[in-house]
């Protein structure tokens, strides 16, 4: 029996998904109807990075008409338990804070109301009392013995410390004539899909079951985590995904904690509940890639041949270890030698928790954190020895005849010809021409650099790799974990049409198109006759823990298993047809919608008729065949074995190869990177759909460019989150993404049914360091960390050392150190009233009420303590706050220190000011003030760029009003700059 040579696979056919998406007929989670009576949730989140919750007053919020309930962590305690991490550690693993918050954006309460607007109104009315603790932000500081501890149960912020040894690294270092190390601080970033998280959940108390619709992307191992957190067996958690998803890039794995929160809330309120995340929530508290501090040391000979690597990685997983973390650290464990034949490796892996958003899946998952130090190191080795980086990379590559190749740490590289890929990339990418351009540019004094990167792109994760974090003894106790089940179901209906169902949960990649291509080819049908559904329902569809959309597993595993299912179905249909045609099954050909003799095409039957036989005429089906109606195949590659006793792990099934070349120039004045040419050579095995492969490469490249140059989820020293809008977290736009020259060689994978490998994540791994290598080359740097912002590069171009950018974007006085977000200011005014009068005014709540900007009234708590309700605006973000002011160091009537805190739904702040009153010699008073203040919470996240100006306006407004009350004419004497006066006027503060 045969199949016709493929007529769809390998072609860039139009996608079956597109007509609906282009017509506004997509069905994303927020487009689907909900059951009558569905309520809407909004989540109140912590403004503090680290604080105890002393009390939550929900009474006012609850009383708001339209609000059904306010649910706190304590309320949810009764119906939920923690989210189990991959690593047993005594961490509080709730999806919502109970008595302590550990990152900005951590859920504190959920308001459930008739509509989302009312739910958000309710959030504004909740009053939470916090006692702020010192925040731990830096992963290395978190390791210090005197560091504040996030989880007392663990006793330290380091929750895992493992050492590994492969080959004989000590001997290799001892024997080596050269060694060199790089230290890299890889920053935080995220995939930031255009669609945010969404969950719609209901609970049926009659059988204790949950129905959860969530734009979750897998892995469905997390289904077990969510079911456990909801305290139900797996079959009582029906998890469904919507037909369309607005992108994920790994990130929508992180919707899982919200599935728990919203489902449990639905149970408590007794009605279905819907929640759609907003962008601030997404940027501040969905998931982030890990930030990592790595020191990588290499031993090498005079030719630059590397004989050993020594990795020291400190992985920052944020405030909680959420499953599958610390997977980011172990996904690449088999690939720690990259594309190189290095046999001796030492590794120390530490996982620390800090007061930042918990980490999770982000495209590239662990790859960029590994390749950045590895490929920086290769460039440094070449420069140290005075060799060409291309030659050093090429010299160290795994030989083409060595595949399948077992790496020192245990990965089994399936196929490749790295030397050929390198040579073709250099030839077709014009490496020599770029070198000439560099020479010419440098001759003119311009800053031009070339970067190179070789990377192995793993795909189809071994579900057992994460257990490498455990010791061999712990693994033996827990039982071995391994494999990667993929599944496809093909169904024939009574008119013989074909439906394919998969558990790949596509996030926009076009899986339905490729599956239609694959199955249509096997069954010899026009593609239009194969319909594919990819929305998953765990109650009805075939799935397993590896199901979902991650680890670039679609082309290699899911399209492969669909091919297996179609082939098996075809072979069974052939036997039905053979029985009716009196032919041998192996003589039949499936083509053109018919099943016919390959020798005599007239002897045949329409496909549909044979396909419908088991429905209408089971009597015609050979008895041993059973019903040929539905074929479900599960496939797991045998190569994905559990870690062995020596910690070797084949962490992924397929290994693609990338070689990137970048030529760029840096504008000496602005620090802007101008990419002259970017060449990306890929070997992703057999290409199933060239258009989609190109789309994956281009999309990955654009995200990598963002991660390298524009994007950072940034935090202040106090843990305040500073990039809560798309004006702070800068995604590249069409005007920033340069042209890309994509090249391919094809080394089909011997381990996958179609020979395909993953391709979606490679550039996220290779491009950041390729750009950094080019920048280092242009500026002659030894060390450079991301992001490569213009400000940073301009400073470096000017000859300075790498200077961390001032946090909070633009402090008026440069911050003394990175992350210090203190606002400082001073001013003075002269008033006609004498110091004694001014002094008395300062202690009078009525006067204060009239001079504090936005005040709704001031209460005197004691002789020196005041409380005020104020409305303050920072840019467009206006909110109501509670202010407390304490006077101290009273030197009547000459000086006083004011210490204040401001707390509200939009954030919190605190500061200290010293006010001095001096007689001006004419019966009046000269009032002078200096202050220091810091602001956190939502205001800091969305208004960082406006904060300093706004603080000045508010503080200036106070003194202006005070001066006016004291008979001064502040307008003239306050000496405010004209621009500030105009701003004040615009904001409604008269100056």
């Amino acid at each position: 029996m045969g199949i016709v040579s493929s007529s769809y696979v390998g072609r860039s056919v139009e996608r079956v998904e597109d007509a609906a998406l282009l017509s506004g007929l997509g069905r994303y989670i927020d487009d689907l109807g909900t059951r009558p009576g569905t309520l809407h949730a909004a989540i109140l989140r912590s403004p503090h990075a680290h604080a105890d919750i002393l009390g939550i007053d929900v009474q006012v919020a609850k009383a708001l008409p339209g609000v059904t309930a306010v649910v706190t962590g304590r309320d949810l305690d009764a119906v939920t338990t923690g989210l189990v991490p991959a690593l047993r550690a005594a961490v509080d693993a709730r999806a919502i804070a109970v008595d302590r918050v550990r990152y900005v954006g951590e859920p504190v309460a959920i308001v459930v109301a008739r509509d989302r607007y009312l739910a958000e109104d309710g959030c504004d009315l909740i009053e939470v009392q916090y006692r702020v603790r010192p925040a731990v932000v830096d992963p290395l500081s978190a390791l210090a013995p005197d560091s504040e501890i996030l989880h007392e149960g663990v006793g330290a912020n380091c929750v895992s410390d493992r050492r590994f040894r492969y080959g004989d690294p000590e001997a290799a270092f001892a024997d080596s004539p050269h060694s060199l190390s790089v230290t890299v601080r890889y920053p935080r970033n995220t995939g930031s899909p255009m669609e945010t998280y969404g969950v719609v959940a209901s609970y049926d108390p009659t059988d204790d079951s949950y129905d959860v619709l969530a734009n979750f992307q897998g892995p469905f191992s997390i289904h077990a985590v969510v079911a456990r957190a909801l305290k139900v067996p797996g079959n009582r958690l029906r998890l469904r995904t919507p037909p369309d998803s607005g992108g994920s890039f790994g990130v929508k794995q992180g919707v899982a904690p919200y599935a728990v929160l919203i489902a449990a809330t639905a149970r408590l309120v007794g009605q279905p509940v819907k929640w759609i995340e907003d962008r601030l929530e997404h940027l501040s508290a969905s998931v982030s890639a890990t930030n990592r501090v790595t020191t990588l040391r290499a031993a090498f000979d005079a030719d630059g041949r590397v004989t050993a690597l020594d990795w020291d990685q400190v992985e920052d997983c944020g405030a909680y270890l959420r499953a599958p973390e610390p997977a980011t650290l172990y996904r690449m464990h088999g690939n720690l030698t990259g594309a190189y034949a290095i046999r001796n490796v030492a590794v120390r892996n530490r996982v620390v928790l800090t007061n930042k958003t918990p980490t999770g899946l982000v495209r590239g998952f662990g790859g960029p954190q590994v390749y950045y130090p590895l490929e920086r190191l290769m460039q440094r080795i070449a420069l140290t020895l005075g060799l060409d980086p291309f030659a050093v990379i090429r010299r160290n590559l795994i030989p083409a005849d060595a595949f399948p190749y077992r790496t020192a740490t245990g990965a089994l590289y399936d196929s490749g010809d790295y030397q050929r890929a390198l040579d073709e990339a250099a030839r077709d990418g014009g490496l020599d021409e770029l070198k000439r351009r560099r020479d010419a540019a440098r001759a003119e004094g311009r800053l031009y650099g070339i970067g190179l990167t070789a990377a192995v792109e793993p795909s189809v994760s071994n579900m057992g790799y994460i257990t490498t974090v455990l010791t061999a003894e712990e693994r033996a106790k827990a039982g071995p974990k391994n494999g990667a089940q993929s599944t496809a179901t093909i169904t024939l209906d009574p008119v013989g049409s074909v439906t394919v169902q998969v558990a790949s949960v596509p996030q926009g990649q076009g899986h339905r198109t490729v599956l239609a291509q694959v199955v249509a080819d096997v069954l010899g049908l026009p593609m239009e006759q194969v319909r594919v559904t990819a929305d998953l329902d765990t109650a009805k569809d075939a799935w397993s823990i590896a199901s979902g959309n991650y680890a670039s597993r679609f082309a290699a595993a899911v399209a492969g298993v669909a091919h297996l299912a179609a082939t098996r179905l075809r072979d069974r249909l052939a036997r039905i047809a053979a029985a009716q045609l009196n032919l041998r099954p192996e003589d039949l050909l499936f083509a053109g919608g018919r099943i016919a003799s390959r020798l005599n095409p007239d002897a045949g039957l329409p496909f549909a008729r044979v396909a419908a036989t088991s429905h209408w005429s089971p009597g015609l089906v050979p008895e041993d065949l059973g019903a040929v109606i539905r074929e479900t195949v599960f496939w797991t590659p045998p190569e994905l074995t559990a870690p062995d006793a020596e910690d070797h792990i084949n962490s992924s099934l397929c290994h693609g190869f990338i070689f990137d070349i970048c030529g760029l120039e840096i504008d000496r004045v602005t620090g802007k990177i101008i990419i002259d040419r970017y060449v990306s050579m890929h070997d992703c095995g057999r290409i199933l759909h060239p258009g989609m492969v190109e789309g994956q490469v281009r999309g990955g490249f654009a995200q990598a460019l963002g991660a390298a140059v524009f994007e950072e989820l940034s935090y202040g020293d106090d843990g305040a989150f500073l990039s809560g809008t798309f004006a702070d977290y800068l995604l590249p736009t069409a005007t920033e993404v340069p042209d890309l020259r994509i090249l391919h060689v094809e080394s089909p994978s011997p381990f996958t049914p179609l020979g395909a490998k993953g391709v979606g994540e490679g550039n996220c791994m290779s491009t950041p360091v390729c750009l950094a290598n080019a920048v280092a080359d242009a500026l002659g740097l030894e060390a450079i960390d991301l992001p490569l912002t213009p400000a940073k590069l301009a400073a470096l171009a000017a000859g300075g050392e790498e200077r961390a950018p001032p946090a909070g974007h633009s402090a008026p006085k440069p911050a003394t150190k990175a992350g210090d977000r203190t606002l400082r200011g001073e001013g003075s005014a002269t008033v006609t009233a004498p110091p004694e009068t001014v002094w008395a005014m300062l202690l009078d709540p009525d006067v204060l009420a009239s001079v504090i900007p936005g005040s709704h009234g001031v209460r005197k708590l004691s002789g020196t303590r005041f409380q005020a309700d104020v409305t303050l605006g920072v840019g467009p973000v206006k909110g109501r706050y509670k202010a407390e002011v304490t006077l101290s160091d009273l030197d009547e009537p000459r000086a006083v220190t004011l210490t204040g805190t401001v707390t509200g739904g939009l954030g919190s702040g605190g500061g200290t000011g010293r006010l001095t009153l001096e007689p001006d010699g004419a019966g009046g008073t000269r009032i002078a003030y200096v202050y220091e203040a810091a602001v956190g919470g939502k205001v800091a996240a969305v208004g960082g760029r406006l904060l300093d100006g706004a603080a000045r306006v508010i503080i200036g407004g106070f003194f202006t009003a005070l001066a006016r009350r004291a008979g001064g004419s502040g307008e003239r004497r306050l000496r405010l700059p004209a621009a500030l006066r105009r701003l004040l006027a615009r904001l409604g503060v008269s100056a």
Partner: protein
Amino acid sequence: MPQLDAKGRHTVAFTLNGRETTVEVETRTLLTDALRHGLGATGTHVGCEHGVCGACTVSIDGVPARACLTLAVGVEGCAVRTVEGLAPEPGRLGVLQAAFRRRHALQCGFCTAGILMSLDAYLVLRPNPSRREITEVIGGHLCRCTGYAPIIEAALEAAAELRGDIPAPSSPEAAHA
């Protein structure tokens, strides 16, 4: 425009894709929410709700606007066009839409509606745009999937077809190398 009661609900009348329609909203209701949840026109998407990403772009009286920064009460009497109004008839794609499909100018499709609306308006204004100009227009939108290059190609190809410079491409794969 009449003064509206902040607490009350208001009936807003406008045309949506050429059809007269009304929707009842609060004064604070965003146009995105009125279109999507009030009228079921879910083709307009919400990506950031602060006017940066452009996913919610619709046409109001022929001018592209961010629906997430527009109050629904503000479109009283206006002609609003959304992605649902782009196709010449149900089941058929317009020239721009078809070019997007041919060029693989979308993946998840979430940002696409806004980009189509911006380009649709721009190509009326500038039938013969340069690559630079098209890039600038698309630069007003965030797409996280495609890397933008195929969107630019699709827009230029659609512009050429709309001008009559090239015939409607027939082969689905002609566009792809």
